[in-house]
């Protein structure tokens, strides 16, 4: 008998009697202002939100905050003039020297500042982690309340990979003291388009 058969038959013998699943498992979260809750949670997890009305405002802010930065890439056509780094590469290892990536987020969750990005937005899975700094553009109308709504909205297997990103990468593994920028991006800026 293969291990597969052995394991499955032992499970069949040992599992308890069938138990129906009829428990409430989706809940409402009520927030007065979804954007404000999102921004508050984002700042709690180490990121920063900024409301903008146009791509011009995003460009101006990027130029202001990353004025001496080179190796910038973006997946957003309207921001292409900011980019000096092409994502049209075959090997994700070539992203190694990327300093700033500006990408689009599909939608955001107010309760935990998580933003869903998938291969629909990402030409390379490694992009939001390998870049030194990350900026995500979302639409204000795409902020929803909680994770239950999130999974109603997203089809997680529409592409091969998708991830919720909540803030910049971080660790507290040395004496519980928080350090931003473990292996992924060292900073996360979220532009929220009105």
């Amino acid at each position, binding site marked *: 008998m293969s291990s597969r058969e052995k394991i499955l038959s032992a499970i069949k013998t040992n599992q308890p009697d069938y138990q129906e699943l009829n428990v*409430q498992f989706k*809940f409402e979260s009520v927030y007065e202002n979804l954007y404000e809750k999102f921004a508050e949670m984002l700042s709690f997890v180490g990121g920063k939100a900024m409301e903008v009305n146009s791509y011009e405002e995003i460009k101006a802010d990027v130029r202001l905050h990353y004025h001496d930065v080179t190796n910038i890439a973006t997946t957003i056509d309207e921001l292409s003039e900011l980019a000096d780094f092409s994502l049209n590469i075959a090997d994700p290892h070539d992203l190694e020297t990327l300093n700033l990536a500006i990408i689009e987020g599909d939608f955001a969750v107010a309760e935990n500042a998580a933003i869903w990005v998938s291969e629909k937005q990402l030409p390379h899975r490694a992009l939001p982690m390998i870049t030194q700094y990350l900026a995500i553009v979302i639409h204000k109308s795409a902020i929803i309340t909680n994770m239950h709504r999130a999974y109603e909205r997203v089809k997680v297997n529409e592409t091969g*990979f998708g991830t919720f990103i909540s803030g910049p990468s971080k660790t507290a593994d040395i004496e519980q003291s928080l*350090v931003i920028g473990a292996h992924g991006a060292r900073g996360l800026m979220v532009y929220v388009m009105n």
Partner: protein
Amino acid sequence: MNNIKQDHASASTEFNKDEAHVDWHDETLWFVRSKRDKAVFQIPEWEQLREAGSQIKNHVLSNMHDYLVEFEKKATENGIKIHWAADGQEHNEIVYSIIKNEGVNRMVKSKSMLTEECHLNEFLKEKGVEVIDSDLGERIVQMRQEPPSHIVLPAIHLKRAEVGETFHQHLGTEKGATDPQYLTEAARQHLRDTFLSRKVALTGVNFAIAETGGFVVCTNEGNADMGVHLADVHIASMGFEKIIPKVEHLGVFLRLLARSATGQPITTFSSHFHKPRAGQKMHIIIVDNGRTKQLGRPDFRNSLKCIRCAACFNTCPVYRRSGGHSYHTAIAGPIGSILAPNLDMARNADLPFASTLCGSCSNVCPVKIDIHEQLYKWRQVLVQEGHVSSVKSLGIKSMSTILSSPSFYRTAGKLGRFLMKNSPFMTNNNLNVWYQHRDMPDVPKESFREWFIREKGGK
């Protein structure tokens, strides 16, 4: 780790020799527990969420066979290769054969308690394969040739000066440097080179979805993602109990997990894998290693609901004052003390006694595992099966060391008084060795300390 050097009692006596360090360990974990409370209080439906998590997992246990078959079918359709491993040895051999097949002898690995349980690193080392753990805490303990002392915070037993010294030796940081920012930066550079040069990457699995044949991996550092997105081969190792029925159930578990673990609203990255990227190979190894046996024990099968948040560690007065290494098993703490005897009763007979049965673990568990009741039941089984030769030394020795500290009473005393009043059956019975060897006092309504503070009206 195949032979226990010391049982929990002697190891905690050892740990308690440095009192300042123990106090610090205790307070640090209590701080994590308080962060959990703060996060939980912001969710009015928290108790319903726990109930949902618990019921979903109960349902999964009762339909495990069909869900695994469904998962295998869907994952295979997605282009993922599924392997089945009856035990740790078989798991390790599968990993090794995949690595060998790629013609490489190095691998990067993100956190997976399962691979600790299977002793994968040691196995691969003997085969001449170098494994680098990429979670910062795991990397620290790996350099020190120690096992993790906590499932979420692997290096929680170390002070920054000790980490600084380790990094000085292994990464060439300045001698005496202790700044976490500086030390983390050194590890970032070192591990970035690793990510960029490894062709095989292994991750754990937090949740595997039967409905879609995909899986979710949660990290704060982004190390799992960095490893696999830059590797030609992604191996994901999972105990079979990681399965959940549908995508929509992730809403419950992702809301519960990080809040219970560290008080964060969610981990920084919650990555959903369904297909390998173009040109990449993806493997999932589904492991038994004693789990089918545990599934067949009605009193203990609930332990398979665990989502490895470690809330029960952080709240446990005994864990906080004895440290993870005193449990001499891959998974320490209250849940580890239930899982370990299933694997080896003789070797782990001391662990269910490493508890005051105060019940705090069961109260914080996001999937409502009756942890302290199972610990109590294990004691009965172990005594009946003759594995507790010297009950007194097992039960009393560790308790007396741990319980003799004043700060223990400040944090655990309230719970203890509550429990002794409300659940006397748990403390007053023939099998509770602690009770047998001393008279349980009547329970005062408040402690002297509380009375004193109330009477004096302040600190």
